[in-house]
């Protein structure tokens, strides 16, 4: 095989041979210049890199590499600290949207129901309608809550005030 390689100091066959050795777990057997050339080739050739990607590197044989884990009591303390520090996640925007949409739909359905109820009752002068003649001295809502004021009756004698909580 003689495809072009980016690193001219090793032939294609030499690069193939070097990669084959790494695939066989013989990484340590290469010379530094072979590793340099192989690295350049792997960076330039995704196919060659893919051949190596699923391989597990060879074990290290000069001594134990395992790490003893902390005792359970220590892990419990760490976990307590993590729980204390993790901030509760904010609901995702799409969740807030759907909750708000559901609440608005519920209010509209209720308003339509009230209108229908009064019309069926045959008293046209008691239809539900948006409040016009009501004076509200103060209506304070917090954190983005939405106030809706409805009223019923000829003289707006039945005010209905809806406050939609932020996020529905």
């Amino acid at each position, binding site marked *: 095989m003689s495809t072009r390689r980016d690193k001219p100091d090793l032939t294609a066959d030499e690069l193939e041979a070097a990669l084959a050795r790494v695939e066989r777990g013989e990484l340590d057997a290469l010379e530094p210049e072979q590793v340099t050339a192989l690295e350049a080739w792997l960076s330039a050739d995704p196919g060659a890199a893919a051949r190596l990607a699923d391989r597990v590197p060879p074990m290290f044989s000069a001594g134990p590499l395992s790490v003893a884990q902390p005792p359970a009591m220590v892990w419990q303390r760490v*976990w307590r600290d993590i729980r204390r520090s993790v901030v509760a996640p904010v609901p995702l925007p799409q969740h807030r949207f759907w909750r708000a949409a559901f609440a608005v739909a519920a209010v509209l359905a209720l308003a339509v129901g009230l209108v229908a109820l009064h019309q069926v009752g045959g008293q046209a002068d008691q239809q539900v309608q948006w409040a016009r003649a009501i004076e509200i001295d103060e209506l304070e809502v917090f954190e983005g809550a939405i106030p809706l004021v409805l009223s019923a009756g000829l003289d707006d004698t039945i005010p209905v005030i809806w406050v939609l909580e932020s996020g529905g």
Partner: protein
Amino acid sequence: MSARNQNSAESRLVQLAAAGDQNAQAALFERYRAAAYTVAFRITGRAEDALDVVQDSFIAAFSRLGEFHQESTFKTWLLRIVTNRALDVLRARRLRVALPLETQNGGSLPVLAPEVSDAAESRDLVERIRAALEKLPPDQRAVFALYAGGDMTYGQIAEVLGIPVGTVMSRLYHARRRLYALLSDLAPRDGPGGSGS
């Protein structure tokens, strides 16, 4: 392992954890704390620092799970956070005023492989390996720390560190070569330059 192959149960666990489910978060913590600690310890070389790194990393991971879209596995994503934080600890340590060596190492408890923890000779061996690891440059140490768990492929290590597979191979090669040189009296006959490991 790619996201496509990720266990769907784990995917569900991650979703629950992202929604703030503490049982799901606890399950993820129990599943990956050992891997996180191993990597953190191999990079920092100190048990106390490694525990701090693990704790900070899980806090960061659980707080930012909404940003994790499972293109990689949770383990890969978590180990990326662990590696970066452990390297931060290393950098911060190098900025500190130099202290006598015995003082710098005095705060760390050499963590021993369970199978050798009773033998003074083995304790020395583990300590020598830890000291040798500390002589590696941070980029090589990070690759070696991920590799030392023994279950990650070149590709997975590359994904965690955000570097090409060939660079993983190269850094690991030089790390192993340096460690074998530092531990030459321990290295087997087929160390670097031999027929492999």
